[in-house]
Structure formats: C-alpha cells, structure tokens
C-alpha cells in the first residue's frame, strides 16, 4: 500500500465532520439568540411610543392595521396606527383594551388556533395544510372589509363581528363547495381567535404574502 494520504484517512473525515457540525450548530445558536431578541413580543408602551416591533404587543388590537409597500424595504410591511402611528380602530366596540385584557384574549385565541387545529386545513404564516386559505393576513382580506363579500354574507356591521360569526357557524355561510366544519367555537373563543388573527396580521413577515389584496379582481384594495 502506498503512503497513506490524509484524504483517505477516516480519522480526518471524522474530525472534519465533528468540526463542521459543531461550527454550524454554534452559528445557529448564536443566530437564535439574535433572532429571539428581535421576535420577542412588544408591549403596550412600544405601541404608544411608536416603537416598531416585528411582533407587536397584544394591544395592537386597539389600532388600525394596514399592509403597505415600503419603498425602503422593497416589499409590503404592516403599518400600525396609520401614518402617525396613533390611529385607533374599535375592536368589538372598544379601542381601550388594557394590556392584560388584550393578552388574555390573544392567549385564548392562540390556544384556540391550536386546539381547533386551524393549521391542518389552513396555513398560518404560510405553514400548515393547503386545504383552505392562508390566514397570515386574513384580518386584512378584502372579503371581510366593509362591503366585502364575507362581511355582507354574515350581515354584521364590523369585520371582527363578521369573522367571529363565521367562526361560530361556518357551515351556515358556505362560500365554496369546500366548507369549514363546525368546530364548536364559542362566542368568547371566536373573539379570541379574531384577536389572534388581527395580531398575526400585524407581524412583520418580510413581505409575505406579496401584493396581498392589491389585485384588481380581488375587489377592495385593503386598508385604503
């Protein structure tokens, strides 16, 4: 046998594998620390002071949320509270949900989203099943706005009430041959779920989904 080369030495490759794996893992952990800081949920103070968080605090439900093109970032971003950041929007008749109330509502909604298994028909932030529409920006969907098809169908005055009504009695409002089943969602749970959806729409998803609700055929231009 010729003189052994390092390239055909198992020890060399074993050590390389260990070093590369270790390096990749350390890098991932380091990035995780950085990301964890950036995706921490904001607070009511942040919203009041106009501090932009990737994941805003639960009291975002008191504010108007839109999804607008940012020339700086080259894609759409959620805009909270309009141009000045302080434009409120009533949520189930109130725009003064306290941090505690809003947090409890969001907690109920997030629990509901898991227990009702939303993710095995819908996608949330694009992840889940593909049997039903993506819910990332459902709160901003033209269908739920004033004059939108879904809001008219339920006969409710506001989009949050329309969404809550639909969630409680989905098969009463068939929109398509493929219907949402009745999941025994109570009025309170529906409120929580709508809060969860509104909160999700305010998350900065780096422009996903692209051009949401801005196409001619989609009817109303969202948030305008």
């Amino acid at each position, binding site marked *: 046998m010729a003189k052994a080369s390092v390239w055909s030495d198992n020890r060399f490759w074993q050590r390389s594998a260990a070093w590369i794996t270790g390096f990749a893992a350390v890098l991932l952990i380091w990035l995780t620390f950085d990301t964890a800081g950036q995706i921490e949920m904001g607070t009511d103070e942040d919203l009041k002071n106009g501090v932009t968080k990737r*994941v805003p605090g639960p009291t975002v439900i008191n504010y108007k949320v839109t999804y607008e093109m940012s020339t700086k970032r080259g894609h759409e971003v959620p805009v909270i509270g309009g141009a000045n950041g302080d434009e409120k929007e009533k949520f189930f008749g109130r725009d003064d949900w306290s941090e505690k109330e809003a947090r409890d509502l969001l907690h109920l909604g997030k629990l509901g989203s898991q*227990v009702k*298994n939303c993710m095995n*028909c819908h996608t949330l932030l694009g992840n889940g099943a593909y049997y039903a529409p993506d819910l990332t920006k459902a709160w901003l*969907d033209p269908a739920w706005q004033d004059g939108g098809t879904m809001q008219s169908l339920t006969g409710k005055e506001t989009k949050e009430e329309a969404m809550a009504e639909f969630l409680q009695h989905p098969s009463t409002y068939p929109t398509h041959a493929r219907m949402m089943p009745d999941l025994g969602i109570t009025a309170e749970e529906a409120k929580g779920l709508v809060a969860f959806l509104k909160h999700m729409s305010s998350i900065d998803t780096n422009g996903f989904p*692209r051009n949401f609700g801005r196409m001619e055929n989609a009817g109303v231009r969202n948030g305008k």
Partner: protein
Amino acid sequence: MASNHLTGIGSESKQLATWYFTFAAIIFGAQLLFGLVAAIQYVMPGFLFEILDFSVARMLHINALVVWMVFAMFGSVYWLLPDETGIETIGIKIGKLLYWIFVAAIVVVILVYLFIQVGPADETSIWFIHEGREYIEAPRWADFGIVVVALGFVANLWLTGFKGKNSGIVTVLMADMIAFAGLYLAGMFFTDNITVDQYWWWWVIHLWVEATWEVFVGAIAAYGLITMIGAHRKVVEMWLWIEVAMLFGSGILGIGHHYFWIGTPEYWWEIGALFSALEPLPLVAMFIHVLYDWGKTQGGQDATGVEVSVVNNKPAFTWFVLNAFGNFLGAGIWGFFHTLPQVNLYTHGTQFTSAHGHLAFFGAYATILIGMMYIAVQGTNGIKVMKHTKSSLWAVSLIVGGVMGMTIALTVAGYVQVLVSRAQMGATWAGYFDGQSGMWFAQAMDWRLFMGALTFLGFLFLVKDLLSTGKNPVHEK
C-alpha cells in the same frame, strides 16, 4: 415474520426490531388510508364532512407518517446493533417494555384524534387531545411518554455502543440519535407568540428531516452496503463521515429557509438561501456513493470470472438504490425548486410544498426503511440470497409509480396555485378559491387521488410480500 432463525448473540435485539417493523408497517397503512380520505375530500368536499374532516384526516395522515418512520428507525437500529457491536443490546428487556408503552401511547393518541377530534380552547385540550402543531400534534402527556421512550432507546444504543465493538456506523448513530431525541424538546412548550412558536417548531421538524434523519439514512445506507453487497467497511465509513460533514454542514443552517416569512429577521434570506442551496450536494454524493460501491464490488466479483450478483437481498437492495435516487430527487431537486426566497415568496404554503413533502419523505425515508424491513425478513428466515418475487416487484412498481404520479400532480396543482392565487390574485381568500377551482388544479387533484390509490394497492402487495416471502422457495437458504 417468524423468528425461528433468530438465535445466538443479538437475537433479542433483532426480535425487538421485528416488533418495531411490524407496528411501523401497520401505521404506514393507516397513513395511506387517511391520506386517501384527505385526497378524496379535495375531489368530493362533502365526503365525511363533519364526521372525519380534512383537518382530522390530514393530522392522522402526517402523524402516522412520523410515527411509522420513527418506529422503523428504532427497529433499524435494534436490528443492526448486534451486527455492528458484536454483542447483545444492553438493556433489551427495558427496550421491549418501552416498546409496548410506545405502542399503547400511540394507539390511545390515534383513538383520541379519531373520536374526540377537538376540544374547548384551553390547556386541558393541549394536554389531552392534541397540540394542533403540524407534524408534532401529539398531546402533551404523550410528549413526555415519547421523551421517556426515546431516552430509553438512546440509552440502549449508547450502552451497547460503549461496551461492544465501536464501528463508525454506531458512532454516527449514537451522536445522531441523541440529537434526534433531544430536538423533540424544542417542540414541547406553549407560547402566545406565533413567530416564536414556529421558530422552535422548525427546530424539531427541520432539524429532524433535513439533518438528523438524513444522517440516520447515511448510516443505514452504509450498513446496507456492507451487509448486502459486501462493500469495504473502511471506504463506506469514510464516505459516511464525509456525508455527515456535508449533511450537517448544509442542513443545520439550511433551517434558514423556514425563517423567510414567519416574522424572523431578513438575514435569514441569505443564510437560508445559501445553506439550503447546498443541501442537495450530500444527496448527490450519497447517490453516487451507493452506485459506485455497487459497481466496484460487482466489478471485483466479475473479475474473478464467476458471474454472480454480489447482492444478497434483491428487494432490500432495490429499495436502498431507490432511496439513493429518491432522496436526491425528492429532497434535493424538489426541495431546491422552491428554496430560494425569490421563488419561495410565491410558493410558500402551496401544493408545491406538498409535492416536495410527498416525494421527499418517500424518497429519503420510506424507501430505505422498507429496505430494512426486507433485511429483517431475510434475517428472521435465515435466507442467504433473497430474490424478488412477483409481489415484491408489483409493490415496488406501484408504490414508486404512485408516489411519482402524486408528486407530479401536486406539482402541477402547485403551479396553478402559485400563478393564479399568489402571483395573479395576491393571496386573498377569493384568490385562493379562484386558484382551487381552476380546471388544471381540479384535474391535478383527480390524478393525485388515482395515484394515491395505486400507491395503496402497492402497499397491499408489499405487506403480502413481507409476510409471505420468507417461506417462498425461490430464495437460497
């Protein structure tokens, strides 16, 4: 699978392996059945509406997938451990006890999914019904059970690995399986922050299927090459280490491709794009490696002048080669299709992902695990050279054809969805249904159902063959 030929050192471990394989095959069948229910619902939306809704069928479909693969993976390790270490698996009695606990837990979870399905929006439902997080829906109580069973399994593996002969394959498996089990912990908490939720959820899903499971496949493929064609251990293990370096080197940070749109910072675009673009490379390497070793060993045999196949288990080796190719095609090519953020912005959350999911799970994992089942059948029946039977060939053809067909159909459906619902209609509720009602989408779903049915037919042949081939006189005893 009669176990009359399992005697001597390692027979206990191998017997436990056959138990794991048997339950895996049953759950594999359940996976296909619930997949068929879900596929029918795409074509006939009223099918079992408010009885067994899509959400339940789909949850069972993907959970059964994960469970049967984990069972078959545990089985594979218990099977090869005595061969590699030269000793009986340590703590095998506890291993067997944990097996029954595992089976009982899975059965209870499935029954609860089926008959309770959904509960009120509170913590109790999370603890006792399901957690509603794709792939890892198992309720919290079952999470703890799974952790206990996995720890027991890892302990068996580690103790045996330390005491017995320490091969490269076992070393890789020891490191890999502890990471595999440990990562499950990242999915065991509740948070109101959906972005944080999905961040850690991907630690489990991605670091399983695109890192630790892939390395597992590398180790199993190495074992298969040594046992089935007598490949040279040093060469095989050197390749294995190279594969580990490439798989973990690309796969760990490749997790970035799941962090493009869930609220995480923009730098994940670059990291995800770069490392996930590298992910197909080790899969190419694995494919070349299997074919190279096969050619080399067969060439060596041919040079002796005696024309005889070096493969001592034809059906298993067929599945191993399919794995090498399917892994590359399903995980590599179909994954690369939509991994760059510029493309993924439109393909994320469409049937495109589903197409990739079907071919990748099948190509990368189902194939090689079926191959391991054949190796177990060979061993338990004391067969020297195992040949194909009519059933084994029908099984391979129908399953491979069926899964490829489903993948192509779903890819077409994905294109329609991307172009119509996403690019044209801006991803709204109305846009979604415009895409779904398109003719090409509907036709694709018809084809998917048909191809799914073919796959199930192939599965029936597979079960028949696994149960009967051991007694078939065609093999050399």
